[in-house]
């Protein structure tokens, strides 16, 4: 309100200040929306007292934030080892994509939330602390900073964060929103495989699980895919992942069930057929496997080369067996 004092002295500027004042009140649209129409099930105040705090070393807000969310999820990770995994010395900071990747290396599913304040608060209310990227300064002199939202109070319009060297930073919600908005409301959570954050979109979760499968153990990835197929039974990618991880663990029965289900529902069943053929072969059902592989080859498509390889290998195997029997 202090800007108002200038109006009398600088009449030409008063219009500019009026615009500024108007902008200031308009730049926290989600906070305003939440005030007028809050989701009915959202508790009015939450604070995750048990979320640990790791005071940030110089420039190391990324590792500190990750350590907070991972340890809350029961995953012991230190800011020091996380710093080696995310900190980029030349940039004096950590990139968002590497924050996601580093969490996966610690056996956590790392996934972005939808860019909404109500989603952020809902996850905190579910006991999941949320890493946010804030720009503490201005668009033209950005100061990017990771902090962890561990609580809020809607009555007082406050957000509670673990931030930098401050264990319990209380920020007015509109001010928080303005700093967060500059990262286009970027927010991520780290959860153990098997936990699906309530607000995360189906395809975001499944793609996070696919990224997780790349670095995690097959058993952990299978856990994530299983949870996804329970929640979204028609997600084909999750079903394929469930079959593939079961295959890696040599649980042929489970793999066969998943692939068979996928063949029936998929518009492009070649991957499911190819992998089903291999699963049947692993169980010694070679003739059946060849039949399935033939079907895959007859369809063609982007995985034609691989399915031809599978068929050729299986046919050769059958010929070898024939020759030995003679």
């Amino acid at each position, binding site marked *: 309100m202090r800007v108002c004092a200038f109006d009398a002295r600088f009449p030409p500027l008063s219009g500019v200040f009026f615009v500024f004042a108007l902008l200031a009140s308009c730049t926290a649209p989600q906070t305003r929306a939440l005030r007028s129409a809050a989701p009915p099930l959202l508790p009015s105040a939450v604070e995750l007292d048990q979320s640990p705090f790791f005071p940030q070393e110089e420039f190391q807000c990324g590792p500190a934030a990750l350590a907070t969310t991972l340890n809350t999820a029961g995953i012991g990770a230190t800011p020091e080892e996380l710093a080696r995994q995310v900190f980029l010395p030349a940039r*004096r900071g950590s*990139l968002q994509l590497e924050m996601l990747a*580093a969490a996966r290396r610690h056996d956590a599913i790392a996934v972005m939330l939808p860019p909404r304040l109500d989603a952020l608060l809902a996850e905190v209310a579910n006991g999941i602390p949320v890493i946010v990227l804030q720009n503490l300064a201005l668009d033209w002199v950005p100061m990017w900073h990771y902090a962890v939202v561990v609580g809020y109070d809607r009555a007082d319009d406050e957000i509670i964060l673990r*931030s930098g060297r401050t264990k319990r930073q209380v920020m007015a919600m509109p001010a928080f929103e303005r700093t967060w908005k500059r990262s286009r409301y970027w927010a991520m959570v780290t959860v153990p495989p098997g936990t699906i954050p309530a607000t995360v979109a189906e395809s975001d979760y499944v793609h996070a699980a696919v990224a997780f499968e790349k670095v995690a153990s097959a058993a952990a990835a299978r856990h994530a895919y299983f949870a996804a197929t329970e929640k979204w039974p028609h997600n084909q990618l999750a079903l394929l992942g469930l079959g593939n991880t079961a295959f890696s663990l040599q649980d042929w029965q489970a793999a066969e069930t998943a692939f068979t289900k996928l063949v029936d529902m998929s518009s492009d069943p070649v991957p499911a057929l190819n*992998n089903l053929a*291999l699963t049947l072969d692993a169980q010694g059902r070679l003739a059946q496997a060849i039949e399935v592989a033939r079907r895959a080859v007859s369809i063609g498509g982007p*995985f034609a080369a691989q399915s031809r390889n599978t068929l050729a290998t299986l046919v050769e195997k059958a010929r070898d067996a024939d020759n030995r029997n003679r």
Partner: protein
Amino acid sequence: MSAMNGFWTRSITCVVALSISNVASFPTAHAALISTAQVAQAGAIQDRVAINTVLTRPEIQAELIRRGVSMDEAHQRAAALTDEEARTLSQQLDSLPAGGVDVFGAVLIVFIVLLITDILGFTRIFSFTHPIK
């Protein structure tokens, strides 16, 4: 200088590419599962881009090393990325936001900026400033 940088980037890329080529996933000549990641990519990505992916990983590893990450750690960091993430990073390693503000530093700079805007008369935060008339 940029020519030099290009030279070093290429050199490191070559070394890294050679050192990890044995683990790069080329289509194999025997029967293999079609992976979840392959299918996840198939929808969105054309063959041309898929070919580039093979080159991206050593490249991103070299870029990380150039920015102060140790050789061993760079390898693991590159390996933890999905193909799509690796592509994004290799194109925007220097332009993506890097969260790393020392909060004290931020407060100090904000203080200085506000001090200057105060003195210029655009803001009026501090009682001890005298705006330029």
